Each structure stands twice: as C-alpha cells, then as structure tokens.
C-alpha cells in the first residue's frame, strides 16, 4: 500500500469514529433532557398522590341544628367547636381562634355532616366521627413543603397553627395515606378537594368522538386516494394539501371550530362533542398519511394475486390490502389520537377552559379535559394547585405512554410476515 492510500484509509477511519461519537453525544444529550424533564415532573407531582386526613368526633348539638331547614345550619362551626375541643383551646369573642383552626381543615367535613344528617336525622344529638382532608396548606406543612423556618409573615399558617398541626399528628387524629380523592373527584376551588377524574372522563369522551369521526373518515379517504383515485393533477393537489394540513398549527383548527362548529352550526361551547370534532379535523390528515403509507407498504403482488383470481378492486382492497395494512393503520391512528389527547390550544379557542366542578354529564355539556386541566391549575394562585399540576401531567403522560404501548403491542400482534 502506498503512503497516500494509508493516509486516506486512516482519515476514513477517523471520520467514521468521529461520526459515531457525534451520534452517541446527541443521544446522551437528548436522553438526559428527557430524564431531567420527567424527573422534575415526577418530583413535583408525586407528593400529590399522598395526602393527610383528619378524623374528628363531632357532637351534633340539637340546639344549633334547625331540623326544619337542615341546609340552613352552620355545620362548619360545629366542626370548629369539635376541633377546638380536640385541641383543648377555647374560642374568643371575635371567633379568631375558631377561624384559625378552620384554616387547617377542609370544608368537606361540614358537608359530610349535612349529608349524613339528611340521610339519617336520628343522628342529631349524638357524636359522629367524620373523616376528611386537611386544608392544602396544612398538607403542605406535613409534607415539609411549608417550612417552620420561613418567617411567619411570609407563610400562610402562623406558629400557633403549626403547633396545633403537630399536636393533631401526634395524637393520631391526622394520618397520611394515598390520595384517593385526587382520582375520584372533579375539579374544585379548594385544592385539597380538587381531583382529576372529571378531566379524565372529559378526555375519554372527547377522544371517543375524535376516534369515531377521524378513524373511519381518515381510513376511507386514504383507501380511496391510494387504491381508487386516478393519478392526475387534482389528486396531486389533494395530496399536497393533506400534507400541508398536517403541518397547520393546532390553534388554527380551534379558530375553525369556533367559527364553523360553534358560530355557524351552533355546536355547544366547551363540550366534548365540539372538542372531539375539532380534534378530529386535526387528527384527520395524520390518520390519512399514516394509512396511505401503510397501504403503500403492502406489496403489489398481493393486489395482483387477488385481481388475478377475479376479485374486484373493492374486494381486493377490503379482503387483502387493508387487513395487511391494519397494523400500520392502527399504529398511526393511535399515535394521532395520543397527539389529540395532549392538545390544548384549539380547546381553549372553543371555550373548554371553563371551571367544571364534578364530572361531565353529557357529550353536549361543559367538560374539562386533561391538558386544559393542567393549564387551569398551573394558572391558579394557590401553591397546592401547582403540586396538582405536576400530578395531572403525570396522569396525562401515563395515558400517553399507555396509548403508545398499545400501538406497539397491536403492531407486534397483527404484523404478518411473508
């Protein structure tokens, strides 16, 4: 070998090594950002999945409950009295102390008493035990996020309240545990009572609408374009525009939904039906593109085989080509639905940002969805909502990962080899 050739060879090897190193560095950088992102969300959100609850015996004083008008009585004051008794404190004339103890526990306890009395009026005059969440700030103190070392003026609870909390915890009245309420409640103005279930149900309803519209329409459009449409200028124009539509910013679909579905067709504002229709429009190009590429990947020999035995073109497509393309179609569809699940901007345009306590009632009623719930909580002023924001993101990510995993599994299961 000549010297020149040896030098060239060495250079070539060096270039190859360099290129591999660049690749590794890129992957490492990308992965570390991913870990950072997920880690931060997880760190911030995991504490939401546990919470602290207070069990309190409350004497239902017949003198303070109006039997003829149960809703009219002040149950919060009954709870406050019970809590003062538990703590061994007495109230002053201006109710400062009872006001301070009520800052520690959820209003939920009062509602629980009302509901139990309504169900069984015989309870009046007896002592019952109610269990409910402590106030979000108290929960944050138990979790160590609200620190005693902070200056008293800069934190929501004063030293006296913190001392009460310590005593309650020590006495066993307050216990920590899994935050069931977060998964069984709808949204609330009180962070300790706010849950994600309303948004999960809303997202599921909306996604159902999206899937029912986008999947049949998208798949059939793709089948027609790929298998039946003549290849001429018009179909070229259609193809280019479908590809362009896939790249249109999602907020534009929101504007379209607002202008066409709501203002023109009179679709309900902020409803899963309307949201699903808007997201279906958004998912449609992606479904079409994914289906077309899956159809393209089916070898032409299968079409020839079917046509050769005298199948019509429709039979060829629906008996042989489409079943063959199904894994690809399903993967593309699920991924586009997962994308739709995480979409926020177009839903804000169609008024899905309203505060919705409780669970969505119908497809045409107002509802929250997961990403919008994240958005709403993130904008809330109370610190405990920010913790819930991260937890809602975790829930959203879990759904996304589940959908992507489903796509992979379906692909593996239905993939046929030849």
């Amino acid at each position: 070998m000549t010297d020149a050739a040896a030098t060239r060879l060495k250079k070539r090897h060096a270039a190859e090594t360099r290129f591999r190193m660049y690749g590794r560095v890129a992957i490492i950088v990308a992965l570390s950002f991913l870990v950072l992102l997920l880690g931060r969300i997880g760190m911030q959100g995991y504490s939401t999945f546990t919470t602290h609850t207070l069990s309190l015996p409350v004497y239902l004083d017949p003198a303070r409950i109006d039997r003829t008008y149960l809703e009219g009585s002040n149950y919060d004051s009954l709870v406050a009295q019970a809590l003062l008794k538990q703590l061994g404190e007495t109230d002053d004339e201006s109710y400062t102390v009872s006001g301070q103890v009520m800052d520690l526990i959820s209003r939920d306890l009062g509602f629980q008493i009302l509901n139990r009395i309504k169900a069984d009026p015989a309870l009046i005059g007896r002592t019952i035990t109610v269990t409910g969440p402590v106030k979000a700030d108290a929960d944050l103190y138990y979790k160590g996020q609200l620190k005693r070392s902070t200056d008293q003026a800069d934190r929501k609870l004063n030293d006296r309240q913190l001392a009460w909390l310590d005593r309650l915890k020590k006495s066993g009245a307050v216990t920590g545990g899994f935050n069931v309420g977060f998964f069984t409640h709808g949204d609330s103005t009180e962070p300790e009572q706010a849950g994600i279930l309303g948004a999960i149900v809303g997202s599921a309803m909306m996604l159902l609408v999206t899937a029912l519209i986008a999947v049949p329409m998208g798949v059939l459009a793709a089948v027609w374009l790929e298998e039946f449409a003549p290849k001429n200028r018009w179909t070229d124009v259609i193809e280019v525009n479908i590809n362009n539509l896939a790249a249109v910013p999602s907020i534009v679909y929101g504007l379209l939904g607002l202008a066409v579905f709501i203002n023109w067709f009179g679709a309900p504002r902020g409803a899963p039906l309307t949201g699903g229709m808007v997201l279906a429009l958004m998912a449609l190009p992606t479904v079409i593109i994914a289906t077309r590429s899956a159809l393209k990947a089916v070898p032409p020999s299968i079409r020839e085989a079917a046509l050769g035995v005298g199948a019509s073109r429709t039979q060829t497509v629906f008996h042989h080509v489409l079943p063959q393309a199904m894994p690809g179609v399903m993967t593309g569809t699920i991924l586009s639905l997962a994308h739709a699940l995480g979409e926020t901007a177009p839903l804000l345009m169609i008024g899905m940002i309203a505060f919705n306590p409780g669970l969505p009632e119908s497809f045409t009623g107002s509802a929250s969805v997961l990403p919008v719930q994240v958005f709403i909580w993130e904008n809330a002023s109370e610190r405990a909502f920010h913790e819930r924001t991260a937890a809602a993101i975790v829930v959203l990510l879990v759904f996304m990962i589940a959908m992507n995993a489903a796509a992979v599994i379906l692909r593996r299961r239905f993939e046929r080899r030849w």
Partner: protein
Amino acid sequence: MVTSMTLQPPLIRTAAPHSHNPAAVEPSKIVIRDVNVFYGAKQALDSVSIDIPGRSVTAFIGPSGCGKSTFLRCINRMNDTIPGCRVEGAIEIDGADVNDKTVDPVVLRAKVGMVFQKPNPFPKSIFENVAYGPRIHGIASSKSELEGIVEASLKKAGLWAEVSDRLNAPGTSLSGGQQQRLVIARAIAVNPEIILMDEPCSALDPIATARIEELIDDLRQQFCIVIVTHSMAQAARVSQRTAFFHMGRLIEAGPTEEIFTNPRESRTQDYITGRIG
C-alpha cells in the same frame, strides 16, 4: 379497433405448412390481431397478431423488456390496473373480445387465471388461499363442496400430499416451489379455461422448477396455458408452440421444435444461439 368481422390475416404465419405437430390440431382458443400497447406515450407492443391454441402450452420468449409480459397481461386485462396503460387491437377468447364494454374484467379473470413470477400466496391459511376464489365467485354452495374444490385443486396442482395434514398453516410457510404450486391451485380452483404464467419458475431452484414443469405438462390436458419464460431450455421442454418477441414486436411464432431447430427469422436464430438477448 378491429372487429371480429374484419380480422386481417396474421402478419406472420404461425403454423408452417410442412409441420405435423399435434398441437396444431387444437383449434385456436385465443385470437389476437394487431395489438398495440402504450405506457403513456411510450409504445410497448407494436401490432402483435397471434393465434394461441387451446389445451396446449404456448411459450413466449425474448430478451428482457421485449413486451412479452405486457402482452400476457393484455389477455386477462391486468394492464387495466396500470395507470396510463392503453391497449389497442382485438384480443378474442372463443370469439369474444375481452376489451368489449360488456366484459366484466372480474369475470374475465376468473376465466383466465394467472400465475406470477414471484409466488404470491395470500397471507392466510393454505385452505383460505385456494378457497378464496370459489368463495367470491359463489362457485361452491356449501362448505363441503368448497372443501371438495380445495382438495381437487390442490390435487391437480400436485400439492395435496404435502399439505393435506396442515391446511390451516399459513400459505406463506411453504417453500417457494410449494407456494408456486399453491398459487396454481388457487388459479385452478375457479375453473379457468386459460392459465397465464409469467415466468413462474424464475424464483425457484432447479428441483422445484422441474416439479412445476411436470405440473404444467399435466395441466395442458385440461387448460390452455400461456407461459412467459426467460429460459429457452424451459420453453423447449414444456411448450408445444413458441413465440419470439423482440423490441415490442412478435418476430416469429410456430411449433416449438421448429423455432428451436429451424427458425425462419435471423433474429430468432441470434437469440436462441445467444448472440442477442
């Protein structure tokens, strides 16, 4: 378009007067006159005329790109599926023009089966592969009748003994040669009169090829077979008649023996002796 009443005599005499090949006794099954095929502006076939007898094997030979496969695909109108492909001229099977407006290509393709270069069984079971054709054409009225058709077709294709115990196995699990016989069984199952084979052995090893060739020889008792092949030895072994194509034209057609031993055209001579191709 030339109608059946004004058919012109073939440009090339397909049967030499002095030949006494038995295949010539068979009446013509397919009569083709002045067929031109265009892919867009490009002309792939230039006024091809030929008579193809029934119950015998006719081989189309010629170098790559000479139009023999295109011509084969005209007979069952598979070219319809190619965008921009245009076919002119008369292609008649038993006197009926296949390109007539009243002819449904679906019915035509049931009558004219096709076997492709690469074995292309459906990714379904062996049974389903054969049963698909009879099912979509409504040939079998009951399940047992369908099973009978599948068995008979597999037997005719010489595959029954090898697959009778695993009819539910995927068709794609068979070897290449078995797959090609499965595909032939699939074509036979819809009772075709003509079977077109487009280089059926080019993806197979010599042993599988020999089996297919034996099968073709059996099948010609019942079907009109047209086979496109690159192998001149194969054409010589299996066919009774041979047609030589070159540059989109039919150069010469006649009894196989004559084409290979005493061609009239110098280009045929050059091709079979390996000087062009």
